[in-house]
């Protein structure tokens, strides 16, 4: 089966040609023709209409209709802005990097068309500081575009002017959140803003602002060139188009694959990425970056689309699949995930700041064997207390996968707790068994107590083990 799965390349078309990164190469494949056509023969509103009809959904995570976003921008004379979110920082996501590296002009053309449609005179690409090479490539490409007259004053005699600035971030995941990105661009501490007002109404420097992901904007020229119908011929009804999917983790051929939305997860993970390494099985996977609730092999045959992932209780997010094979300890993966979000929390709102911190501390105790199964209920409850209560989605981004992991792999959590605890219990000689304290890999130690004995012993010691723990809500 794996051999038959093919990519559908629109954004990554000609990506193998290194010349594509130059303006000559890009133009040799017809680049910038759409922008010229748009400037000459299309009204901004027409473009907005095409984008809306195409059903293009944001590729950065939220999946909001791109055309609608543009249409929210007020008409009129005020200063408007377009920001391209190239702060791709989600663990597991590396598609924008490839899009910018291989085809920077596709992005620039998309930004130019979107800016023209939105009536914006200033555009920014906010690229994460670690994408140094890609930022250099963009800098060069922007320069080329200026030289060729596709950016700057009175573009191609149309009377439309656009300035595009590549801005390098300083290394905070939170700046990928659109309003934090705006604050960072303005030179402030990158903290999310309260919404409303939404950026479309009051964004960068207080002006209406369109913010879209690299991949979303890269789609623009293709849609405007070929029409909404053409775009809708790819993908599903609610998720039209193709998607560049980053697949990583325990697979044979990790990498970016551009596919039509709606392709099955199995085709993606097994067909394109080659499935798990020899001797391993898929145990779980994040379908949409580290902030999406994990799915299990039972869900492998679901179509990969915004709607199907939402129905399965997860999300397509940025379209980054991270596969955990059976060598991965889920509690450790949960801790790893929580640590990332704890580290990246900006600290502005209470539930995220304190919730990520507390969750990490609890999960650390879980893997050290210092927790009790009751702690798993507290972990779950804390995640519930975070979800929906935060200023932005960063808190939810930890809480959702962590609570999914606890729900779906509760047995494994309990086992890790028990085994790590066992390793800490003194043997008959009074020695500490196993690797004690930080027993990440949970060596089983030298105790001869089995798990049942251990649970019983905990109970006798008076450490509370709630009833629910025994009939664990096993989802896996």
């Amino acid at each position: 089966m794996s051999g038959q799965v093919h990519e559908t390349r629109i954004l990554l078309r000609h990506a193998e040609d290194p010349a594509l990164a130059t303006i000559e190469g890009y133009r040799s494949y017809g680049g910038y023709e759409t922008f010229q056509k748009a400037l000459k023969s299309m009204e901004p509103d027409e473009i907005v209409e095409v984008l809306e009809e195409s059903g293009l959904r944001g590729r950065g995570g939220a999946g909001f209709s791109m055309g609608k976003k543009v249409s929210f921008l007020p008409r009129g004379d005020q200063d408007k802005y377009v920001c391209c979110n190239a702060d791709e920082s989600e663990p597991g996501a590396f598609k924008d990097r490839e899009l910018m590296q291989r085809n920077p002009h596709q992005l620039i053309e998309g930004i130019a068309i979107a800016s023209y449609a939105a009536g914006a005179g200033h555009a920014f690409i906010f690229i994460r500081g670690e994408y140094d090479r890609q930022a250099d490539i963009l800098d060069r490409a922007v320069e080329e575009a200026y030289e060729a007259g596709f950016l700057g004053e009175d573009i191609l005699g149309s009377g439309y002017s656009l300035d595009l600035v590549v801005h390098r971030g300083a290394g905070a995941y939170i700046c990928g959140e659109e309003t934090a990105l705006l604050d960072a661009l303005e030179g402030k501490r990158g903290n999310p803003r309260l919404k409303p007002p939404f950026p479309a109404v009051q964004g960068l420097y207080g002006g209406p602002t369109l913010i879209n992901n690299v991949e979303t904007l890269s789609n623009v020229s293709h849609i405007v060139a070929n029409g909404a119908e053409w775009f809708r011929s790819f993908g599903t009804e609610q998720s039209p188009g193709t998607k560049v999917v980053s697949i990583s983790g325990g697979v044979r051929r990790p990498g970016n694959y551009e596919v039509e939305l709606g392709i099955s997860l199995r085709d993606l993970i097994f067909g394109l990425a080659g499935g798990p390494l020899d001797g391993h099985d898929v145990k779980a996977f994040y379908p949409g970056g580290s902030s999406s609730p994990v799915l299990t092999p039972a869900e492998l045959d679901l179509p990969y689309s915004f709607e199907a992932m939402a129905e399965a209780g997860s999300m397509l997010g940025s379209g980054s699949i991270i596969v955990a094979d059976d060598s991965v300890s889920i509690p450790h993966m949960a801790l790893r995930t929580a640590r990332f979000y704890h580290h990246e929390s900006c600290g502005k709102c209470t539930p995220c700041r304190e919730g990520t911190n507390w969750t990490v501390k609890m999960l650390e105790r879980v893997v050290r064997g210092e927790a009790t199964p009751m702690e798993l209920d507290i972990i779950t409850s804390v995640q519930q207390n975070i979800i929906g209560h935060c200023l932005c989605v960063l808190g939810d981004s930890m809480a959702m996968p962590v609570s999914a992991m606890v729900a779906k792999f509760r047995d494994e959590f309990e086992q890790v707790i028990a085994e790590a605890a066992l390793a800490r219990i003194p043997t008959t000689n009074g020695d500490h068994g196993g690797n004690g304290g930080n027993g990440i890999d949970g060596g089983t130690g030298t105790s001869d107590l089995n798990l049942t004995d251990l649970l019983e012993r905990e109970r006798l010691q008076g450490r509370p083990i709630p009833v629910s723990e025994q009939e664990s809500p096993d989802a896996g």
Partner: protein
Amino acid sequence: MPAEKLNRIILTVDGREIEADEGTMLVDAARLGDVEIPVFCYEPKLGDPVGACRMCLVEIEGIPKLQTACSTPVRDGMVVHTQTAQVKEAQEAVVEFLLVNHPLDCPVCDKGGECPLQDISMGWGPDRNRMVDQKRHFEKPVPLSPLVAIDRERCILCYRCVRFSQEVSEDSQLQLLERGDSTYVGTFDDRPYIAPFQGNITELCPVGALTSYTYRFQARPWDIEQGGSVCTLCPSQCNVSFTVRDEQVKRVLARDNPEVDDGWLCDKGRYGFQAMYSADRVLNPVRFEDGQPVPAGWGEAVELAADGLLRAGSKTAVLVGEASNEEGYLLQRMIRRALGSSDIDSRRGPGFGAADALALADPAISARVVDIDHADLVLVVGTDPIHSAPSFDLRIRKAVRRHGTALAVATDRPTALDGGASEVERFDPGTASAWLSSIADEVAAGSGDGIAGLVNRSGHTVIVWGERIGRGDDGPAALAALARLAEAAGIAAEQESGLIGIPETANGRGLREVGCLPDAGPGFTPLDPGRDTDAIRAGLESGEIESIVLFGIDPIRDLPDTEGWRRALEAADHVVCFSMEANASTEFADVLFPLESHAEKDATVTHPEGRLQRVRPSAARPGDIRPGWMVLAELSALLGHETGIGSAPDALAAVADAVPFYEGLDDAVIGGRGVRWQDRPAATRLGDPTPDPLTPDSGNEETVTSTPPNPSTGEPGGPLSSTQPAGFDSEEGPTVGRDGSGSAPGGVVPPEDVEPEPSSTTTGALTLGTYRDLWADATTDLSPALRFLSPAQRLEISSADARRLELKTGDEVSVSSGSHFVNARVAIRTALPEGTCFLIEGTISDNANLFSNGRPAAVEIGPPRIELDLVTAGGATPDSGEAGDTSEGGE
């Protein structure tokens, strides 16, 4: 459209129908229906909500996710639930999260008992703790500044202090450092937070993270009382609440009065209470035997004072500095009716007269403080509010930041507001009139450029002007030009346009209105002019005045011509001082009476906007201090004029009777928030003469008769303002039109000052301006917490002049004019125009008031000159070819 603004809507919160203005934030609207939604970060005074703490999550029908009530504007028909299981869960979650890292050290925390976190935990939090992990730790408490301690463990990161620093005081010093749960409040590079409003953050802090060093471990909330009063340390007259324990003030809090102070206090108002308990405070009457102070009984002291004053009779003068309306009224009544003298002044330097003051008091051209908030344009002329009336600085910043008000600044010295101004213009010290009249002309001509253009384009215009521009020879012309500008700008026609004058003393406006002017009695009733401040000094020196009463003023420090005042007080036969503290002038006293502080006084003061406010006794008077009105009434009686005033309300009633436009004012009318006299019917009586007789009781009580001719000016009573002795010199140093005629009244020029120093004529002569620094006063000096702010003399100099003179910031120099000099450190200010420099008045040493005497150098070359002599080793020399005259050791 105002109609839209006031759209009333009905919403439902927890089943209660609540009527509110559309757009009100839900938290505030709910309160109207007695529904309390808990908040930590929400504080409308700090600007737009930030929604950071998430404490105010509520359920709004039709919106699936919980919403923050602090940031949700209400709409008609909105249905809100604050008590559902979902909301409860969220509230408990947020409190639980806040307590994850908050130490439970409430028993030893100063906030304990008045702590929003305690209250909200109690009211909305979960009843058990599930957190068993380590909390975060910081070194604590550490000084955030010399005034404020920070306990970062207690901080719940509500952002309030940081928002205050960034969006209210705009000093931007407080920042959040690090991120996530490692976030902490601090300053760049751990530098101390030095800003004049920092104390406000201790009040904003909803936990015990920010505490004032002055109040740490001083009291528990259950053994204190709060007493509302008004701060009279500057003309802002912010409303305050004194925290009193054991009859002593322990803390000063803001008493939010949006019409006066917006609920902010400057640090002088907040921490200056310490001066009340300073060892230098005068606690009982003192008489002097051979120059040595001897405690005296009240009866003895009053008799002693009366004897001396009676001896001098009409050769008595009164200077009033910091005083209430009642005290000022009684002083002028005493000197006029008991002694037959009109030599009384409350201005630091004469200049404009009572007629000018009366013209500018016209309600049609008076602005209210709140008019600043929504003005199209605020024009600041001749004052830097951060020094003269700090809360105006915040008010103007607010208007600019939140309401898009345009700001224009026209001053001699660069101000703290320049950064936010659309237009900044500079005039040379002492030349405000030239600038004002040219602007008035431009505005009248419909100019579209610069400040005139701004005025012409703006509807509501508020002009905040410093009364200093009325000082000196330039003063009357400046005020006339100001009135012309107001007319050209059509200010009288606009309801919300107007002028606000910032006096030089806290109750300057009130003192003028109750008659502490040489040429006017209560209510600006015109009188033949007596001596003004300068003429009184000259009269003392020449012996034409034999006795002086100094009430709340230290002329040697506060007034121009330090040396002159020293000689004047030396020469005086009898000096009666009323002062809170011993100072340079009280050394010359024959009798010294203690004064009450604003925490002890029962009196009224008048705000620059015309608002009568009550200063109310909150703490006990220490030692043997008596109310000012009582002492003055007694003294007056001994001098032969029985006032019949036997209580504080009597005194206020007498003031209200004497000042026609104060008619009918009493404690109840003034109330807790004060009342503008312009807003009362009696305002129409502005200009009516006082019913008070203004001559000695034995004289003709029906008509206002001349005071004895003024020998020192030689001028008979004539037109009121223009005959003011034009003598104030020159620290405002005019650079144009000076012809040497401006020497001190009476021509008293100390001989040693007449001759300019020969070598100094060309060595970098600059025009010297001076200003009174916020911290250059006795309150700062006597408050241990504030003392570090007491300024040492510094010479502000333009970068061009500094380059020319090869000076750099921090260099020590001596600044001299004639034979006088002060030492100062150089501070280069790029915003200063070339050729001008500034010194501070009222510093403990090297007071710039030293220069403002007979203006010796000016006589010869016009503007007062200074020469800069480097005294630092390795210092530079002027480049004008006279390198030889600045030796390394200095002179």
